[in-house]
């Protein structure tokens, strides 16, 4: 069972993640996007961006480092082999572009128990090198009960 006392816990900010142009292109290809904004720096600049624009779900790459903190926290009691991704949301102040140096800070906003299962809501706030908000990535992780807990 997930420790209910982690509700409200704030984890240390992650090391800065430098968004690379080729990484943006690779991610865009992986999600089948051919938009020139993701692939062509000149097209992105013509549209007013500093460099290629990341697809909106790219923020998961930065968020992942924060979820790793949660999974590594023995006190939290989140068993990775029992985790199911329930939902996901990204809320942007501005798009991510290549060249951004992003830092993420995880807050556990809710822990609920439901029939032996635990629902953990994790919110990762991502800021740029100036400390200004770029995106918040929020996930609900469903941690299925171990067999002995459902009995």
């Amino acid at each position, binding site marked *: 069972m997930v420790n209910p006392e982690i509700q409200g816990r704030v984890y240390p900010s992650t090391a800065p993640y430098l968004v690379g142009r080729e990484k943006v292109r690779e991610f865009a290809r*992986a999600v089948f*996007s051919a938009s020139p904004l993701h692939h062509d720096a000149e097209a992105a600049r013509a*549209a007013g961006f500093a460099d290629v624009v990341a697809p*909106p*779900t790219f923020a998961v790459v930065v968020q992942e480092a924060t979820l790793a903190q949660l999974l590594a926290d023995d006190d939290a009691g989140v068993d990775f082999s029992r985790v*199911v991704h329930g*939902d996901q*949301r990204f809320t*942007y102040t501005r798009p991510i572009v290549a060249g951004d140096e992003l830092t993420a800070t995880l807050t556990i906003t809710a822990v609920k128990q439901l029939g032996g299962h635990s629902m953990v809501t994790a919110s990762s706030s991502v800021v740029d090198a100036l400390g200004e908000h770029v995106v918040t990535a929020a996930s609900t992780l469903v941690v299925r009960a171990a067999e002995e807990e459902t009995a």
Partner: protein
Amino acid sequence: MSTPDFASLTTGDIVAEREFELTRDRLVRYAGASGDFNPIHYRDDIAASVGLPGVLAHGMLTMGIAASVATDWLGVAGSVRDVQSRFTRPVPVDAVDGARLTVTATVGAVDTDARTARIDLKVTFDGATVLGKAQLVAAFA
């Protein structure tokens, strides 16, 4: 790039529809691009050992594909404020036959004061919807 015109958006209009063939190599490509190397997305033996119907597409890949349909339509007309989804049904990807997804993007709501539009994203696999409340909010210039 063709760009949608905000003034012409009408709730209920289908703005884009695309089909996708997911294959195992697409899952491996997404694993590398995203950093999600959970083996249930490329190893049949491990997927079976945890009781899954087969190797599954990453939920975030399905969500990312759905978002791409909306953002490829949006182009330079605006930027994404918000994108969200629930993961309601798994998408097994057969080693030989793959999996075919259909994504339909529909105008869900228009806020003329804020110049934003909500695009509802319906993703179907094998006759059933696989994402819940999948939607993207775009702010138009």
